[in-house]
């Protein structure tokens, strides 16, 4: 964490956990040269934590500069696990057909799906202390039906439009937001265009200089229409 006079993320984490009982804060390290490590908040205590960060004398994070979203898809993870199991084997030197059970250790590849989630990132600065940024994150439970997160608009007013944008483009529902409507797309619009599985409208009927991805989409469009490419 850079910034004059600003505590490290570990110190901020300790300060939060000291001030807000029950709050669990996880430090998300950032390995890049910028070293902007972030703090993952639990959704239950997020509002209290935000109020603490804003009102604390040393931190005084009075300015919310940016709110954005990240879409994390379901991830398939393959693990190699050692498993012991019973295998029937013919008995050596025994009568034909005679078997015995033998324990054998084998390596098995197990796959499991790590469910995806939506993440919201907040960048905080202090105008009074001239330090920052402190990066906060919050995660939804999944990408489909449990997409609620507490709104931080009651704490920082500047979150209002940016949370509306995250709602519009990612589909995160901010509870406690004073006016949660779409801000860029029209109200009847159903999709969330910044989600990674968003499929944009198939309007590739006229592509005079198509190449790469556009060429592929134009060909698919023409095939669907029964036209020669």
């Amino acid at each position, binding site marked *: 964490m850079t910034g004059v006079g600003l505590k490290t993320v570990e110190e901020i984490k300790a300060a939060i956990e000291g001030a807000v009982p029950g709050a669990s804060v996880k430090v998300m390290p950032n390995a890049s040269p910028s070293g902007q490590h972030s703090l993952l908040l639990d959704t239950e205590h997020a509002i209290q934590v935000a109020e603490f960060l804003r009102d604390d004398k040393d931190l005084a994070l009075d300015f919310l500069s940016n709110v954005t979203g990240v879409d994390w898809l379901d991830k398939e993870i393959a693990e190699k696990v050692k498993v012991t199991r019973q295998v029937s084997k013919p008995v050596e030197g025994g009568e034909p057909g005679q078997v015995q059970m033998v324990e054998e250790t084998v390596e098995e590849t197990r796959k499991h799906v790590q469910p995806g989630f939506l993440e919201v990132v907040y960048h905080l600065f202090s105008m009074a202390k001239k330090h920052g940024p402190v990066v906060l994150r919050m995660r939804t439970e999944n990408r489909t039906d449990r997409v609620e997160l507490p709104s931080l608009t009651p704490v920082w007013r500047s979150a209002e439009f940016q949370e509306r944008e995250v709602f519009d483009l990612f589909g995160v529902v901010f509870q406690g937001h004073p006016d949660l409507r779409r801000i*860029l*797309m*029209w109200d*009847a*619009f*159903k*999709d969330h*265009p910044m989600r990674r599985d*968003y499929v*944009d*409208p198939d*309007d590739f*009927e*006229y592509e*005079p200089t198509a190449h790469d991805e*556009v060429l592929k989409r134009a060909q698919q469009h023409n095939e669907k229409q029964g036209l020669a490419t």
Partner: protein
Amino acid sequence: MAVDENLKIELGKQGVFVTTIQELYNWGRRSSVWPMQFGLACCAIEMIATTMARYDLARFGAEVFRPSPRQADMMIISGTVTKKMAPQVVRLYNQMAEPRYVIAMGACAISGGPFKQGYNVLKGIDRYIPVDVHIPGCPPRPEALLQAFITLQKKIDAQPLTGEGRPRHLDANAPGEFPVPEQGEHDLEPAANKNVWTVPTIIQ
């Protein structure tokens, strides 16, 4: 044209002025094409520059930008037409009185431009309303807009008052209103007005 061009010049030298109703009528129309005061994006800045003293669109009789579509003769689509804005553009065009003309200014207005593959930008306003002059450029320079305006004036000048190719206000059967697209759940509906725009044939 009823009057021979050379004869007209000869007569002019003798102090005799000969004209036709059509010529007089079109001269009047093309010399006071009032644009609508309406800008969509960065091309609008170039449009504003065109009207100012350095480029001076007033030389061509188009200096009076009207804040109401009822008083305007020409719409300059100056900039990116988003799918959220497109119904309003078509609605404004519908509210203009005939004869009315459209200049699509810049890459976005004619094709979607750099945002063509985006989910929220219309791939050219000519999908919903008839466009008279297209200007490429990102943004086009004021000279290009002047060129487009002169092209439009030539087009108006060449319009006969009767028969094929006459302006829409003299043709009772010409469509006066263009359907405003609906903002649907995924895209504008319909994606194009089939009476105005058909998929162009690509010749390679």
